[in-house]
C-alpha cells in the first residue's frame, strides 16, 4: 500500500526551476494534476454542483435505480447517490491533506535530526521508525482509529501517524546522502549554527523526493480513509464518505448494485490522479538522467 519514492540525488540550484517546468509538462503530471484539480473543484463547489441535499432522505424513494432524476440512483435511505459522491470528495481530500500534513510535520523534522546529527539520537529515532514500519500500515491505522473513536478527524490523525515513519526514513536517507558533500562541510566549517544549516542548506536539497512522497502518500491516505470508513471507523453518519457508502452498499449488492459502483470509481479516479502526479514528479524532479 505504501509506495516509497526512489531516493535519488536531488536536483539542485539552477536546475530546480527548469525541473519544475519539466515536471509540469510531463504527461503523467498533467493527467494526474487534472484529475486531482477536478476533485478539488468538486469538493470546493459541492453545494453548487450537487443536485440534491446529500443527507435528505426520501422514505418513498429507497434504493431506486439510476434515472433522469437521480443519475446515480438512490441509497438505502432514499438519498441521492450522485450528491453523496460529490460531497464524499470532501472527506477523502480532507483526509489526504490533514493526514499528510501530520505525517510530514512530524516525520521530516525527525528524519532531518536523525540524519544530520547521527549517533544516539539517530539510533533511537531509527529503531522507533523500524518498529512502526514493522507493524502493517493498516493494522496500525485501525488500532489508532479504534483508540481515538470513530470520526473523520480521528481517522485522519490515525492515518497521519501511520504514514509518518516513511517520511522519517526517507528524509534521513536523503540527509545522509548529502551530509558529507563539500558545500555542507564548507558551511559547517564556517561555524554556522546547525539549525540554520539544516533549514537553509540541507532541507532544500532533500525536498524533491519528499514532494514526490507527499503525492504518493496522498494516494495512500485517501485509500486508507476509505478503508477505515469501510470498517466503520471513519466519517460519522449522515455525512457521506466513499468508504462508508461502500460498506452500506455491500449489504444491497443484489437489490441495488449501483450503490457500490460509483463511490468506488470515484476513489479509483482520485487515487489514480495522485499516483500519476507522483510518478510524473518522480520522473522529472528526482532524476536528471533521461531514465525511466
Amino acid at each position: 500500500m505504501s509506495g516509497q519514492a526512489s531516493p535519488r540525488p536531488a536536483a539542485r540550484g539552477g536546475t530546480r526551476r527548469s525541473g519544475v517546468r519539466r515536471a509540469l509538462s510531463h504527461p503523467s503530471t498533467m493527467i494526474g494534476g487534472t484529475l486531482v484539480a477536478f476533485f478539488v473543484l468538486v469538493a470546493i463547489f459541492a453545494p453548487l454542483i450537487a443536485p440534491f441535499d446529500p443527507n435528505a432522505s426520501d422514505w418513498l424513494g429507497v434504493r431506486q435505480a439510476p434515472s433522469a432524476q437521480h443519475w446515480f440512483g438512490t441509497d438505502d435511505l432514499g438519498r441521492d447517490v450522485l450528491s453523496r459522491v460529490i460531497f464524499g470528495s470532501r472527506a477523502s481530500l480532507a483526509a489526504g491533506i490533514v493526514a499528510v500534513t501530520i505525517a510530514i510535520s512530524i516525520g521530516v523534522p525527525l528524519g532531518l535530526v536523525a540524519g544530520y546529527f547521527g549517533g544516539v539520537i539517530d539510533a533511537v529515532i531509527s529503531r522507533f521508525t523500524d518498529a512502526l514500519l514493522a507493524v502493517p500500515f493498516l493494522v496500525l491505522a485501525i488500532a489508532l482509529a479504534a483508540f481515538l473513536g470513530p470520526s473523520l478527524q480521528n481517522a485522519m490523525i490515525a492515518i497521519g501517524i501511520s504514514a509518518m515513519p516513511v517520511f522519517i526514513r526517507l528524509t534521513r536517507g536523503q540527509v545522509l546522502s548529502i551530509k558529507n558533500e563539500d558545500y555542507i562541510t564548507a558551511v559547517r566549517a564556517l561555524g554556522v549554527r546547525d539549525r540554520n544549516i539544516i533549514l537553509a542548506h540541507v532541507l532544500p536539497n532533500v525536498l524533491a523526493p519528499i514532494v514526490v512522497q507527499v503525492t504518493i502518500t496522498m494516494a495512500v491516505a485517501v485509500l486508507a480513509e476509505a478503508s477505515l470508513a469501510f470498517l466503520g471507523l471513519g466519517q460519522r453518519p449522515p455525512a457521506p464518505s466513499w468508504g462508508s457508502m461502500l460498506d452500506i452498499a455491500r449489504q444491497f449488492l443484489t437489490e441495488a448494485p449501483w450503490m457500490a459502483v460509483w463511490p468506488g470509481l470515484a476513489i479509483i479516479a482520485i487515487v489514480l490522479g495522485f499516483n500519476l502526479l507522483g510518478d510524473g514528479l518522480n520522473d522529472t524532479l528526482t532524476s536528471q538522467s533521461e531514465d525511466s
Partner: protein
Amino acid sequence: MTVSMKLTVLAGLMAISMASASAQTLRVGLQDDPDTMDPATGGTYSGRIVFDALCDKLLDINEKLEIVPQLATAWSWNDSNTELTLKLREGVTFHDGKPFDAEAVKANIERMQTLKESKRRSELSPIKQVEVVDPMTVVLKLETPFAPLLSVLTDRAGMMVSPSAATSTDEFAANPVCSGPYQFESRSARDKISLKKYPGYWNAGEIGYDAIEYQVIPDSTVRLSRIQAGDLDVAERIAPTDLEAIRSNSDLALYTSAGLAVSHLFINVRPEAKGVLADKPELRKALELSLDRNAINKVAFNGEFTADNQMIPPSSVYHSTRHPMPERDVDAARKLIEDSGVSNPTIEITYENSLTDGRVAQIIQSMAQEAGFTVNLLPLETSSAIERYLAGNFELYIGNWSGRADPDPTLYTFFGTGGSQNLNGYSSPKLDEVLIAARKELDTDARKALYEQAAGIYLNDRPTIPLYHPTWFYGARASVKGISIYPDGILRVTGVKPASN
C-alpha cells in the same frame, strides 16, 4: 518454523479435515462467533443457538411461550408459592457418561450462583436453597414467590453441565460437557464449532443428524448465497431484504417467528445528565410523536419486523392492548416543543456502530429534525459504547434487548429502581410496586392486569421509546425437515431430520 510447530500446523490441518462434512452433517450458518461455551458465562445469542444442541435445560418453552418439560418432567409449587419441586427425567447421562440426578441439579445451580464470573447470578438470586429430596426429586426454595423462575430455567440458567467436568471455567469453556443431543468435538475461533451426536441421549430417536457444524459467517449476503449454493443447510438471521430470494426459491424454505427482542431509544433522565429530555417529559413525548415507526420498519427492514410502542412484543400475552401505537404527528410535536420553551432542542443519540442501528439512527435523526429537534449521532465501537452505557454517560442510546419469555426480566431490569439495566436513572415507586406484585403473582390473568398497569405508567413517563421488535428469519434447504422457530429465536435441533429419512 520449528519442526514441532510444523507438526502442530499439520495436526491442526488434519483436525480440520477430519471434521469434514458428510451427508449426515447439519451445517448451520451463524452471524457471529459465540463467546464462551459455558452456560454460566456465555453471553451471546449465537452461543444460545449452539447450546441448544449441546446442553439440555431443566425446562423449555413451546411456540406459545408456555413452559414444557425437558430434563424436569414435572414441577409443582407449594401453597405459599415459595418452593418449586422438580421431578427429574430418568436415565439421562452427561456426555462423560456420568448420570444426571438431583445432586447434579444442586451442583449446577450452586455453581452458577457462586461462580464469580457467572452471568446467571442475578437470574438465580431468588433461589435461597436447593434441596435434594431423592435422586430424582429436587426442591428449589425461595424467600418470596417469584413467578418468572420457571422461564429462567428454560434458558442458560437452566442448562445442566456435568459437575465433574465443570472445574475450571476456562477449561470447561474450551471443552464443554453437558447432556444435550450433541457433544462437543472441536472449535476454531471465528470459524466453526463442530458437534457430534451423543449416542447416549435420552431422546436419540428424535435426533436426525450425525453431526452439526456451526459455521461463523458474519455477512448476511454470504450466508444467503451459501444456502443457495447448498454449502449450508440452515442460516440464521436472513436479512429482511433477502427474504424474497428465499421465498421465490423452491429449493429453500423460510422459517420465521415473531421475536421477543426489542429495540428502543433509551433516554437518560438523570438530573445530572443535562440533556434537554432529562427533565422535560413533554419533549420526550414530542420526540415520540415525531417518529413514524412504520416508516422506520419499512425503510430499515423492508417492513418485515414489527413496529411497536412497547417493550413487550405483541406475540406475548402480556402485551398491553389498551395502549396502541401512536400515529406520527409532527404538528403536535412542534406544538409541544414550542410550549416547552426550549428553542431548537438538541439531542445526541449514542449507538453501537452497526449498519442496522446506524440506519435506524439516521432515520430517527431525519424524522425528529422535521419536528424541530437537532439530532447529533454518536456511533461508537461496541466496547466504547458499553463503557458509556454502563456509566450512564449518554443522552439517548439505541438499546437492543433480546427479551425473555417472561416479561419480568425485561420490565424490572430496565424500569425497576436498581434494576441491572436501569442505567438512565429512572425511578417510579408506583411502577416498582406494580412490578414486584407481578413477580409474586402466579395467576396469568392477574399478572396480565398488573402488566397492563405497568405499561400505562412507563408509556406515560417515557424513560425509553420502544421502536420495533425484530422477527427471526431462518433460511434452510428444503431438504431439511422438522425445523420450527419459537419466539426466542433459537434453532431447536430436536426433530430436525434430513428429508430422505
